[in-house]
Protein backbone atom coordinates (compact mmCIF):
# COMPACT_ATOMS: atom_id res chain seq x y z
CA UNK A 1 0.00 0.00 0.00
CA UNK A 2 2.53 2.55 -1.15
CA UNK A 3 -0.09 5.17 -1.84
CA UNK A 4 -1.47 4.80 1.67
CA UNK A 5 1.98 5.53 3.04
CA UNK A 6 2.65 8.47 0.74
CA UNK A 7 -0.79 10.07 1.03
CA UNK A 8 -0.49 11.74 4.47
CA UNK A 9 2.81 13.35 3.49
CA UNK A 10 1.23 14.81 0.38
CA UNK A 11 -1.69 16.09 2.46
CA UNK A 12 0.46 17.91 5.02
CA UNK A 13 3.03 19.12 2.47
CA UNK A 14 1.36 22.49 1.74
CA UNK A 15 1.24 23.31 5.45
CA UNK A 16 4.85 22.24 5.99
CA UNK A 17 6.04 24.27 2.99
CA UNK A 18 4.28 27.38 4.29
CA UNK A 19 5.58 26.73 7.78
CA UNK A 20 9.18 26.51 6.57
CA UNK A 21 8.87 29.56 4.35
CA UNK A 22 6.87 31.88 6.58
CA UNK A 23 7.62 30.70 10.15
CA UNK A 24 10.92 28.81 10.42
CA UNK A 25 12.92 30.95 8.04
CA UNK A 26 11.79 34.27 9.59
CA UNK A 27 12.26 32.86 13.10
CA UNK A 28 15.88 31.87 12.44
CA UNK A 29 16.39 35.22 10.75
CA UNK A 30 15.02 37.05 13.83
CA UNK A 31 17.45 35.29 16.13
CA UNK A 32 20.40 36.21 13.92
CA UNK A 33 19.17 39.74 13.40
CA UNK A 34 18.80 40.30 17.13
CA UNK A 35 22.59 40.12 17.50
CA UNK A 36 23.23 42.77 14.88
CA UNK A 37 22.76 46.43 14.31
CA UNK A 38 20.90 46.93 11.08
CA UNK A 39 18.81 49.71 9.66
CA UNK A 40 17.48 47.82 6.67
CA UNK A 41 20.22 48.75 4.22
CA UNK A 42 23.83 47.64 3.78
CA UNK A 43 25.29 44.77 5.77
CA UNK A 44 24.16 43.99 9.31
CA UNK A 45 26.92 44.62 11.87
CA UNK A 46 27.43 41.89 14.46
CA UNK A 47 27.20 43.44 17.93
CA UNK A 48 26.71 40.40 20.16
CA UNK A 49 24.38 40.91 23.12
CA UNK A 50 24.33 44.72 22.82
CA UNK A 51 20.69 44.92 21.70
CA UNK A 52 19.63 42.86 24.67
CA UNK A 53 21.63 44.79 27.22
CA UNK A 54 20.41 48.03 25.67
CA UNK A 55 16.79 46.94 25.98
CA UNK A 56 17.11 45.50 29.46
CA UNK A 57 18.45 48.81 30.75
CA UNK A 58 16.05 50.92 28.69
CA UNK A 59 13.27 52.73 30.56
CA UNK A 60 11.03 52.87 27.52
CA UNK A 61 11.20 49.10 27.03
CA UNK A 62 10.31 48.45 30.68
CA UNK A 63 7.70 51.18 30.49
CA UNK A 64 6.00 49.44 27.57
CA UNK A 65 6.02 46.15 29.45
CA UNK A 66 4.55 47.91 32.47
CA UNK A 67 1.83 49.45 30.29
CA UNK A 68 0.96 46.00 28.95
CA UNK A 69 0.97 44.56 32.46
CA UNK A 70 -1.31 47.36 33.69
CA UNK A 71 -3.69 46.71 30.80
CA UNK A 72 -3.61 43.03 31.65
CA UNK A 73 -4.63 43.85 35.22
CA UNK A 74 -7.44 46.08 34.00
CA UNK A 75 -8.68 43.46 31.55
CA UNK A 76 -8.17 39.81 32.47
CA UNK A 77 -9.52 39.67 36.06
CA UNK A 78 -12.54 41.79 35.13
CA UNK A 79 -13.21 39.68 32.07
CA UNK A 80 -13.00 36.41 34.00
CA UNK A 81 -15.38 37.52 36.73
CA UNK A 82 -17.90 39.08 34.35
CA UNK A 83 -17.47 36.24 31.85
CA UNK A 84 -18.10 33.45 34.34
CA UNK A 85 -21.13 35.18 35.87
CA UNK A 86 -22.70 35.95 32.49
CA UNK A 87 -21.98 32.46 31.19
CA UNK A 88 -23.63 30.97 34.28
CA UNK A 89 -26.66 33.23 33.83
CA UNK A 90 -26.90 32.29 30.15
CA UNK A 91 -26.63 28.65 31.10
CA UNK A 92 -29.52 28.77 33.60
CA UNK A 93 -32.25 26.29 32.86
CA UNK A 94 -35.37 27.44 31.01
CA UNK A 95 -33.83 30.81 30.12
CA UNK A 96 -35.79 32.51 27.39
CA UNK A 97 -34.17 34.59 24.63
CA UNK A 98 -30.91 32.73 25.15
CA UNK A 99 -30.20 32.78 21.41
CA UNK A 100 -30.80 36.51 21.19
CA UNK A 101 -28.38 37.25 24.04
CA UNK A 102 -25.71 35.01 22.59
CA UNK A 103 -25.84 36.73 19.22
CA UNK A 104 -25.92 40.22 20.76
CA UNK A 105 -22.96 39.48 23.01
CA UNK A 106 -20.81 38.23 20.19
CA UNK A 107 -21.55 41.13 17.81
CA UNK A 108 -18.62 43.21 19.16
CA UNK A 109 -16.30 40.26 18.55
CA UNK A 110 -17.19 40.00 14.86
CA UNK A 111 -17.07 43.71 14.09
CA UNK A 112 -13.78 44.90 12.56
CA UNK A 113 -11.45 46.14 15.29
CA UNK A 114 -10.31 49.13 13.25
CA UNK A 115 -13.87 50.33 12.69
CA UNK A 116 -14.69 49.91 16.37
CA UNK A 117 -11.48 51.61 17.47
CA UNK A 118 -12.46 54.59 15.34
CA UNK A 119 -15.89 54.67 16.87
CA UNK A 120 -14.12 54.73 20.25
CA UNK A 121 -12.13 57.79 19.17
CA UNK A 122 -15.35 59.64 18.38
CA UNK A 123 -17.35 58.38 21.37
CA UNK A 124 -14.68 59.23 23.92
CA UNK A 125 -13.62 62.57 22.49
CA UNK A 126 -13.21 65.02 25.34
CA UNK A 127 -15.20 67.94 23.94
CA UNK A 128 -17.51 66.38 21.36
CA UNK A 129 -17.90 62.75 22.42
CA UNK A 130 -21.15 61.04 23.31
CA UNK A 131 -19.76 59.66 26.56
CA UNK A 132 -18.95 63.09 27.98
CA UNK A 133 -22.34 64.36 26.78
CA UNK A 134 -23.91 61.53 28.72
CA UNK A 135 -21.81 62.48 31.73
CA UNK A 136 -22.92 66.09 31.45
CA UNK A 137 -26.53 64.95 31.33
CA UNK A 138 -26.24 63.27 34.72
CA UNK A 139 -24.06 66.02 36.16
CA UNK A 140 -20.68 64.29 36.04
CA UNK A 141 -17.58 66.30 35.12
CA UNK A 142 -15.92 66.22 31.70
CA UNK A 143 -13.23 63.54 31.47
CA UNK A 144 -10.22 63.54 29.15
CA UNK A 145 -10.62 59.88 28.23
CA UNK A 146 -7.96 59.80 25.55
CA UNK A 147 -5.98 62.91 26.42
CA UNK A 148 -4.88 62.20 29.99
CA UNK A 149 -2.46 59.47 30.95
CA UNK A 150 -4.73 58.51 33.86
CA UNK A 151 -7.71 57.66 31.68
CA UNK A 152 -6.18 56.51 28.39
CA UNK A 153 -5.34 53.02 29.67
CA UNK A 154 -8.78 52.31 31.19
CA UNK A 155 -10.42 53.60 28.00
CA UNK A 156 -8.35 51.21 25.87
CA UNK A 157 -9.03 48.41 28.35
CA UNK A 158 -12.73 49.11 28.02
CA UNK A 159 -12.46 48.82 24.24
CA UNK A 160 -10.70 45.47 24.59
CA UNK A 161 -13.24 44.25 27.14
CA UNK A 162 -16.14 45.37 25.02
CA UNK A 163 -14.69 43.68 21.96
CA UNK A 164 -13.79 40.28 23.40
CA UNK A 165 -15.92 39.56 26.48
CA UNK A 166 -18.81 38.13 24.47
CA UNK A 167 -16.49 35.66 22.79
CA UNK A 168 -15.02 34.65 26.15
CA UNK A 169 -18.56 34.11 27.47
CA UNK A 170 -19.24 31.66 24.64
CA UNK A 171 -16.01 29.77 25.34
CA UNK A 172 -16.84 29.58 29.05
CA UNK A 173 -20.34 28.47 28.12
CA UNK A 174 -18.86 25.53 26.23
CA UNK A 175 -17.08 24.52 29.44
CA UNK A 176 -20.26 24.91 31.49
CA UNK A 177 -22.24 22.69 29.16
CA UNK A 178 -20.05 19.74 30.04
CA UNK A 179 -21.07 19.95 33.73
CA UNK A 180 -23.82 17.49 34.56
CA UNK A 181 -27.00 19.20 35.82
CA UNK A 182 -27.35 16.46 38.47
CA UNK A 183 -24.53 18.09 40.42
CA UNK A 184 -26.49 21.32 40.81
CA UNK A 185 -29.70 19.50 41.63
CA UNK A 186 -28.15 17.57 44.48
CA UNK A 187 -26.34 20.68 45.67
CA UNK A 188 -29.56 22.69 45.89
CA UNK A 189 -31.26 19.78 47.64
CA UNK A 190 -28.49 20.00 50.20
CA UNK A 191 -29.30 23.69 50.55
CA UNK A 192 -26.23 25.13 48.83
CA UNK A 193 -26.76 28.76 47.84
CA UNK A 194 -26.17 30.17 44.37
CA UNK A 195 -22.79 31.60 45.26
CA UNK A 196 -21.77 28.42 47.05
CA UNK A 197 -22.61 26.39 43.95
CA UNK A 198 -20.65 28.84 41.84
CA UNK A 199 -17.60 28.53 44.06
CA UNK A 200 -17.61 24.82 44.75
CA UNK A 201 -19.07 23.30 41.58
CA UNK A 202 -18.89 25.64 38.62
CA UNK A 203 -15.49 27.26 38.95
CA UNK A 204 -13.53 24.11 39.88
CA UNK A 205 -15.12 22.11 37.07
CA UNK A 206 -14.46 24.65 34.34
CA UNK A 207 -10.91 25.35 35.53
CA UNK A 208 -9.38 23.98 32.29
CA UNK A 209 -11.55 26.37 30.28
CA UNK A 210 -10.64 29.27 32.58
CA UNK A 211 -6.98 28.39 32.15
CA UNK A 212 -7.40 28.39 28.39
CA UNK A 213 -9.05 31.83 28.53
CA UNK A 214 -6.31 33.28 30.75
CA UNK A 215 -3.54 32.06 28.45
CA UNK A 216 -5.42 33.18 25.33
CA UNK A 217 -6.02 36.67 26.73
CA UNK A 218 -2.51 37.04 28.13
CA UNK A 219 -1.13 36.40 24.64
CA UNK A 220 -3.65 38.86 23.19
CA UNK A 221 -3.06 41.66 25.72
CA UNK A 222 0.73 41.53 25.43
CA UNK A 223 0.46 41.66 21.65
CA UNK A 224 -2.12 44.44 21.70
CA UNK A 225 -1.27 46.77 18.88
CA UNK A 226 -4.18 47.88 16.71
CA UNK A 227 -6.03 49.51 19.63
CA UNK A 228 -3.25 51.95 20.61
CA UNK A 229 -2.28 52.35 16.95
CA UNK A 230 -5.71 53.62 15.95
CA UNK A 231 -7.01 55.20 19.15
CA UNK A 232 -4.06 56.84 20.90
CA UNK A 233 -0.88 56.32 18.84
CA UNK A 234 0.73 55.16 22.05
CA UNK A 235 0.08 58.42 23.88
CA UNK A 236 -0.59 60.54 25.85
CA UNK A 237 2.95 60.61 27.28
CA UNK A 238 3.53 57.00 26.15
CA UNK A 239 0.90 55.82 28.62
CA UNK A 240 -0.59 53.45 26.03
CA UNK A 241 2.64 52.40 24.34
CA UNK A 242 2.10 48.68 24.79
CA UNK A 243 4.83 46.11 24.20
CA UNK A 244 3.38 45.51 20.73
CA UNK A 245 3.31 49.22 19.92
CA UNK A 246 6.88 49.66 21.19
CA UNK A 247 7.97 47.00 18.71
CA UNK A 248 6.06 48.73 15.94
CA UNK A 249 7.89 51.98 16.72
CA UNK A 250 11.21 50.23 16.17
CA UNK A 251 10.08 48.78 12.87
CA UNK A 252 8.88 52.22 11.89
CA UNK A 253 12.28 53.75 12.70
CA UNK A 254 13.94 50.88 10.76
CA UNK A 255 15.81 49.93 13.93
CA UNK A 256 15.53 46.29 12.92
CA UNK A 257 18.22 44.69 15.09
CA UNK A 258 16.74 46.13 18.27
CA UNK A 259 13.26 45.28 17.01
CA UNK A 260 14.22 41.63 16.55
CA UNK A 261 15.66 41.50 20.07
CA UNK A 262 12.49 43.16 21.41
CA UNK A 263 10.27 40.59 19.75
CA UNK A 264 12.30 37.69 21.12
CA UNK A 265 12.26 39.12 24.65
CA UNK A 266 8.53 39.54 24.24
CA UNK A 267 8.09 35.91 23.23
CA UNK A 268 10.07 34.78 26.26
CA UNK A 269 7.99 37.03 28.54
CA UNK A 270 4.67 35.89 27.10
CA UNK A 271 5.57 32.21 27.13
CA UNK A 272 6.88 32.48 30.71
CA UNK A 273 3.66 34.19 31.80
CA UNK A 274 1.50 31.58 30.07
CA UNK A 275 3.44 28.74 31.67
CA UNK A 276 3.21 30.44 35.04
CA UNK A 277 -0.58 30.65 34.80
CA UNK A 278 -0.84 27.02 33.74
CA UNK A 279 1.32 26.04 36.71
CA UNK A 280 -0.59 28.24 39.14
CA UNK A 281 -3.94 26.82 38.14
CA UNK A 282 -2.61 23.27 38.22
CA UNK A 283 -1.14 23.77 41.67
CA UNK A 284 -4.41 25.14 42.96
CA UNK A 285 -6.09 22.13 41.47
CA UNK A 286 -3.88 19.77 43.42
CA UNK A 287 -4.65 21.32 46.81
Amino acid at each position, binding site marked *: MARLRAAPYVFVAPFVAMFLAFSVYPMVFTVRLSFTSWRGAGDPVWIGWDNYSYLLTNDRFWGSLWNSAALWLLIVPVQLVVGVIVAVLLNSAKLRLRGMYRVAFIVPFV*TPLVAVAQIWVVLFDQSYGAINSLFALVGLPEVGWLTTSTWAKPTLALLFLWKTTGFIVIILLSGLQSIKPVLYESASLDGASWSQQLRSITVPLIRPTIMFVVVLQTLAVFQMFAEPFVVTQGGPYSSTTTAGYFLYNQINRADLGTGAATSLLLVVAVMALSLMFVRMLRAEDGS
Partner: protein
Amino acid sequence: MTATDHSPKPARTRRLVSWQYARTFAIHGVLLLLMVAFLAPVVWAILSSFKQANGIIRAPLVFDPSSFTLDNYTSMFEDVPIVRGFSNTAVVLVFKGAITMFFAPLAAFAFAKYDFKGKNVIFGMVLVTLMLPTIVLIIPLLLEMKTLGWVNTYQGLILPGAVDAFAIFWMRQVIRAVPDDLLAAARIDGCSEFGIFWRVIVPVIRPGLAGLAVLTIMNIYNDFVWPVVVASSDDRATLQVVLSSLAQNITGNRIGADYATVTGELLAAASVALIPLLIFFILLQRHFINGILAGSVKG
Protein backbone atom coordinates in the same frame (compact mmCIF):
# COMPACT_ATOMS: atom_id res chain seq x y z
CA MET B 1 -43.28 29.94 33.57
CA THR B 2 -46.87 31.18 33.64
CA ALA B 3 -48.17 30.83 37.15
CA THR B 4 -51.83 29.95 36.88
CA ASP B 5 -53.26 30.12 40.36
CA HIS B 6 -56.36 27.99 40.00
CA SER B 7 -56.33 26.56 43.43
CA PRO B 8 -55.14 28.40 46.51
CA LYS B 9 -51.58 27.35 47.21
CA PRO B 10 -49.89 27.11 50.55
CA ALA B 11 -48.05 30.31 51.44
CA ARG B 12 -44.67 28.66 51.18
CA THR B 13 -45.12 27.62 47.52
CA ARG B 14 -46.43 31.03 46.62
CA ARG B 15 -43.42 32.67 48.17
CA LEU B 16 -41.21 30.27 46.20
CA VAL B 17 -42.95 31.17 42.96
CA SER B 18 -42.61 34.90 43.47
CA TRP B 19 -38.98 34.43 44.44
CA GLN B 20 -38.47 32.57 41.19
CA TYR B 21 -40.07 35.46 39.31
CA ALA B 22 -37.71 37.91 40.97
CA ARG B 23 -34.80 35.71 40.04
CA THR B 24 -35.80 35.45 36.36
CA PHE B 25 -36.42 39.19 36.35
CA ALA B 26 -32.96 39.87 37.78
CA ILE B 27 -31.24 37.54 35.32
CA HIS B 28 -32.93 39.20 32.37
CA GLY B 29 -32.19 42.61 33.83
CA VAL B 30 -28.46 41.90 33.95
CA LEU B 31 -28.38 40.27 30.51
CA LEU B 32 -30.42 43.05 28.90
CA LEU B 33 -28.22 45.74 30.40
CA LEU B 34 -25.16 44.00 29.05
CA MET B 35 -26.81 43.58 25.66
CA VAL B 36 -27.44 47.31 25.48
CA ALA B 37 -23.82 48.01 26.43
CA PHE B 38 -22.59 45.63 23.74
CA LEU B 39 -24.81 46.96 20.99
CA ALA B 40 -24.94 50.66 21.83
CA PRO B 41 -21.61 51.79 20.31
CA VAL B 42 -22.36 50.09 16.99
CA VAL B 43 -25.95 51.32 16.84
CA TRP B 44 -24.86 54.82 17.85
CA ALA B 45 -22.21 54.90 15.12
CA ILE B 46 -24.53 53.69 12.37
CA LEU B 47 -27.34 56.09 13.36
CA SER B 48 -24.93 59.01 13.76
CA SER B 49 -23.45 58.40 10.32
CA PHE B 50 -26.77 59.59 8.88
CA LYS B 51 -26.77 62.84 10.81
CA GLN B 52 -25.42 66.14 9.60
CA ALA B 53 -21.70 66.28 10.38
CA ASN B 54 -22.16 69.23 12.74
CA GLY B 55 -24.92 67.47 14.61
CA ILE B 56 -22.67 64.49 15.40
CA ILE B 57 -20.32 66.63 17.45
CA ARG B 58 -22.74 69.30 18.72
CA ALA B 59 -25.39 66.92 20.01
CA PRO B 60 -24.07 63.37 20.03
CA LEU B 61 -27.10 62.01 21.84
CA VAL B 62 -29.85 63.59 19.76
CA PHE B 63 -31.31 61.71 16.82
CA ASP B 64 -33.88 63.28 14.52
CA PRO B 65 -34.81 60.87 11.71
CA SER B 66 -36.46 63.64 9.69
CA SER B 67 -33.10 65.37 9.18
CA PHE B 68 -31.19 62.22 8.28
CA THR B 69 -28.96 62.64 5.23
CA LEU B 70 -26.44 60.73 3.14
CA ASP B 71 -24.00 63.68 3.05
CA ASN B 72 -21.36 61.90 5.10
CA TYR B 73 -21.49 58.96 2.73
CA THR B 74 -21.20 61.01 -0.44
CA SER B 75 -18.25 63.02 0.86
CA MET B 76 -16.64 59.88 2.29
CA PHE B 77 -16.84 58.06 -1.04
CA GLU B 78 -15.25 61.11 -2.65
CA ASP B 79 -12.40 61.56 -0.15
CA VAL B 80 -11.57 58.03 0.92
CA PRO B 81 -10.37 55.21 -1.38
CA ILE B 82 -12.79 52.87 0.34
CA VAL B 83 -13.95 51.15 -2.84
CA ARG B 84 -10.37 50.16 -3.60
CA GLY B 85 -10.04 48.96 -0.02
CA PHE B 86 -13.10 46.78 -0.49
CA SER B 87 -11.88 45.31 -3.77
CA ASN B 88 -8.44 44.55 -2.31
CA THR B 89 -10.04 42.87 0.67
CA ALA B 90 -12.27 40.89 -1.70
CA VAL B 91 -9.27 39.58 -3.64
CA VAL B 92 -7.47 38.53 -0.46
CA LEU B 93 -10.68 37.03 0.92
CA VAL B 94 -11.25 34.84 -2.16
CA PHE B 95 -7.71 33.49 -2.52
CA LYS B 96 -6.60 33.28 1.10
CA GLY B 97 -10.01 31.91 2.06
CA ALA B 98 -9.87 29.23 -0.63
CA ILE B 99 -6.37 28.17 0.40
CA THR B 100 -7.35 27.91 4.07
CA MET B 101 -10.60 26.10 3.38
CA PHE B 102 -8.91 23.50 1.17
CA PHE B 103 -5.44 22.86 2.60
CA ALA B 104 -6.22 23.14 6.32
CA PRO B 105 -8.86 20.36 6.37
CA LEU B 106 -6.61 18.28 4.08
CA ALA B 107 -3.70 18.49 6.52
CA ALA B 108 -6.12 17.94 9.40
CA PHE B 109 -7.32 14.76 7.67
CA ALA B 110 -3.76 13.42 7.59
CA PHE B 111 -3.27 14.22 11.29
CA ALA B 112 -6.60 12.73 12.32
CA LYS B 113 -6.72 9.52 10.28
CA TYR B 114 -3.21 8.39 9.36
CA ASP B 115 -0.19 7.08 11.22
CA PHE B 116 3.02 8.19 9.61
CA LYS B 117 6.60 8.73 10.56
CA GLY B 118 7.22 12.28 11.75
CA LYS B 119 3.54 12.92 12.46
CA ASN B 120 4.22 14.18 15.98
CA VAL B 121 7.00 16.47 14.83
CA ILE B 122 4.86 17.96 12.10
CA PHE B 123 1.90 18.35 14.42
CA GLY B 124 4.27 20.04 16.84
CA MET B 125 4.83 22.63 14.11
CA VAL B 126 1.09 23.33 14.12
CA LEU B 127 1.15 23.86 17.87
CA VAL B 128 4.20 26.14 17.69
CA THR B 129 2.51 28.25 15.02
CA LEU B 130 -0.53 28.51 17.28
CA MET B 131 1.48 29.72 20.26
CA LEU B 132 3.90 32.04 18.52
CA PRO B 133 2.82 35.67 18.84
CA THR B 134 2.35 37.01 15.30
CA ILE B 135 4.26 40.21 16.02
CA VAL B 136 7.45 38.22 16.50
CA LEU B 137 7.56 37.27 12.87
CA ILE B 138 6.64 40.63 11.47
CA ILE B 139 10.13 42.11 10.98
CA PRO B 140 11.76 39.09 9.31
CA LEU B 141 8.63 38.34 7.32
CA LEU B 142 8.57 41.88 6.04
CA LEU B 143 12.23 41.60 5.03
CA GLU B 144 11.49 38.29 3.33
CA MET B 145 8.69 40.00 1.40
CA LYS B 146 11.14 42.75 0.38
CA THR B 147 13.62 40.17 -0.91
CA LEU B 148 10.89 38.42 -2.85
CA GLY B 149 9.56 41.73 -4.13
CA TRP B 150 6.18 40.99 -2.53
CA VAL B 151 5.69 44.22 -0.58
CA ASN B 152 2.45 45.88 -1.63
CA THR B 153 1.38 42.84 -3.64
CA TYR B 154 -1.50 40.41 -3.35
CA GLN B 155 0.89 37.47 -2.85
CA GLY B 156 2.36 39.25 0.17
CA LEU B 157 -1.09 39.73 1.65
CA ILE B 158 -2.35 36.26 0.81
CA LEU B 159 0.34 33.65 1.33
CA PRO B 160 1.80 34.14 4.84
CA GLY B 161 -0.53 32.41 7.27
CA ALA B 162 -2.78 31.11 4.50
CA VAL B 163 -2.72 27.51 5.76
CA ASP B 164 -3.98 28.58 9.14
CA ALA B 165 -2.76 26.53 12.13
CA PHE B 166 -5.91 27.09 14.17
CA ALA B 167 -7.99 25.82 11.25
CA ILE B 168 -5.90 22.64 11.12
CA PHE B 169 -6.21 22.20 14.87
CA TRP B 170 -9.97 22.68 14.85
CA MET B 171 -10.64 20.50 11.80
CA ARG B 172 -8.50 17.72 13.25
CA GLN B 173 -10.91 17.52 16.20
CA VAL B 174 -13.85 17.47 13.80
CA ILE B 175 -12.42 14.80 11.47
CA ARG B 176 -11.43 12.56 14.37
CA ALA B 177 -15.13 12.09 15.10
CA VAL B 178 -15.74 10.57 11.64
CA PRO B 179 -16.01 6.75 12.04
CA ASP B 180 -13.08 4.80 10.57
CA ASP B 181 -15.51 2.26 9.05
CA LEU B 182 -16.61 4.87 6.54
CA LEU B 183 -13.05 5.27 5.31
CA ALA B 184 -12.42 1.52 5.19
CA ALA B 185 -15.59 0.96 3.20
CA ALA B 186 -14.59 3.63 0.69
CA ARG B 187 -11.13 2.07 0.37
CA ILE B 188 -12.63 -1.34 -0.39
CA ASP B 189 -14.75 0.31 -3.07
CA GLY B 190 -11.51 1.39 -4.71
CA CYS B 191 -11.60 5.02 -3.68
CA SER B 192 -8.25 6.84 -3.81
CA GLU B 193 -6.92 8.42 -0.62
CA PHE B 194 -7.73 11.88 -1.91
CA GLY B 195 -11.08 10.55 -3.08
CA ILE B 196 -11.79 9.53 0.52
CA PHE B 197 -11.08 13.06 1.66
CA TRP B 198 -13.12 14.66 -1.08
CA ARG B 199 -16.10 12.30 -1.27
CA VAL B 200 -16.33 10.96 2.28
CA ILE B 201 -14.75 13.35 4.76
CA VAL B 202 -15.79 16.68 3.24
CA PRO B 203 -19.51 15.84 2.95
CA VAL B 204 -19.58 14.40 6.47
CA ILE B 205 -17.89 17.36 8.17
CA ARG B 206 -19.87 19.99 6.29
CA PRO B 207 -21.26 21.60 9.51
CA GLY B 208 -17.73 21.99 10.86
CA LEU B 209 -16.57 23.41 7.55
CA ALA B 210 -19.40 25.94 7.67
CA GLY B 211 -18.19 27.11 11.07
CA LEU B 212 -14.64 27.31 9.79
CA ALA B 213 -15.76 29.30 6.77
CA VAL B 214 -17.49 31.89 8.96
CA LEU B 215 -14.43 32.24 11.18
CA THR B 216 -12.02 32.39 8.24
CA ILE B 217 -13.98 35.06 6.42
CA MET B 218 -14.24 37.13 9.58
CA ASN B 219 -10.54 36.79 10.34
CA ILE B 220 -9.43 37.76 6.86
CA TYR B 221 -11.90 40.62 6.58
CA ASN B 222 -10.85 42.02 9.96
CA ASP B 223 -7.12 41.30 9.70
CA PHE B 224 -5.11 44.43 10.29
CA VAL B 225 -1.60 44.04 11.69
CA TRP B 226 -0.06 42.15 8.78
CA PRO B 227 -1.82 44.17 6.04
CA VAL B 228 -0.81 47.51 7.55
CA VAL B 229 2.83 46.39 7.58
CA VAL B 230 3.04 44.69 4.20
CA ALA B 231 0.58 46.72 2.14
CA SER B 232 0.57 50.29 3.31
CA SER B 233 0.51 51.81 -0.18
CA ASP B 234 -2.83 53.02 -1.44
CA ASP B 235 -3.16 50.65 -4.36
CA ARG B 236 -2.96 47.47 -2.25
CA ALA B 237 -4.33 48.75 1.09
CA THR B 238 -7.11 46.54 2.40
CA LEU B 239 -10.32 47.95 3.80
CA GLN B 240 -9.01 47.92 7.38
CA VAL B 241 -5.82 49.72 6.38
CA VAL B 242 -7.82 52.39 4.56
CA LEU B 243 -10.04 52.77 7.62
CA SER B 244 -7.13 53.08 10.03
CA SER B 245 -5.67 56.02 8.14
CA LEU B 246 -8.98 57.85 8.64
CA ALA B 247 -8.87 57.78 12.43
CA GLN B 248 -5.38 59.17 12.34
CA ASN B 249 -6.70 62.13 10.42
CA ILE B 250 -8.70 62.97 13.52
CA THR B 251 -6.19 62.26 16.24
CA GLY B 252 -3.05 62.92 14.25
CA ASN B 253 -3.66 66.66 13.88
CA ARG B 254 -4.31 66.82 10.16
CA ILE B 255 -3.73 70.49 9.60
CA GLY B 256 -6.76 72.41 8.48
CA ALA B 257 -9.03 69.39 8.72
CA ASP B 258 -12.56 70.20 9.73
CA TYR B 259 -13.20 67.98 12.74
CA ALA B 260 -16.92 67.61 12.09
CA THR B 261 -16.47 66.60 8.45
CA VAL B 262 -13.75 64.08 9.26
CA THR B 263 -15.87 62.60 12.04
CA GLY B 264 -18.86 62.28 9.74
CA GLU B 265 -16.79 60.60 7.07
CA LEU B 266 -15.18 58.33 9.62
CA LEU B 267 -18.50 57.10 10.99
CA ALA B 268 -19.80 56.58 7.46
CA ALA B 269 -16.71 54.56 6.55
CA ALA B 270 -16.89 52.53 9.75
CA SER B 271 -20.56 51.77 9.07
CA VAL B 272 -19.83 50.73 5.49
CA ALA B 273 -17.16 48.36 6.81
CA LEU B 274 -19.33 47.05 9.65
CA ILE B 275 -22.64 46.42 8.00
CA PRO B 276 -21.75 43.69 5.45
CA LEU B 277 -19.97 41.67 8.12
CA LEU B 278 -22.82 42.12 10.61
CA ILE B 279 -25.38 40.91 8.09
CA PHE B 280 -23.14 38.00 7.15
CA PHE B 281 -22.67 37.08 10.79
CA ILE B 282 -26.31 37.38 11.78
CA LEU B 283 -27.29 35.12 8.87
CA LEU B 284 -24.68 32.48 9.72
CA GLN B 285 -24.18 32.95 13.48
CA ARG B 286 -25.63 29.53 14.28
CA HIS B 287 -22.73 27.76 12.53
CA PHE B 288 -20.17 29.96 14.20
CA ILE B 289 -21.49 29.78 17.75
CA ASN B 290 -22.16 26.04 17.54
CA GLY B 291 -18.67 25.62 16.13
CA ILE B 292 -17.09 27.32 19.13
CA LEU B 293 -19.39 25.51 21.55
CA ALA B 294 -18.43 22.15 20.08
CA GLY B 295 -14.82 22.75 19.21
CA SER B 296 -13.15 24.53 22.08
CA VAL B 297 -11.53 23.00 25.13
CA LYS B 298 -13.81 20.86 27.20
CA GLY B 299 -13.87 21.07 30.97
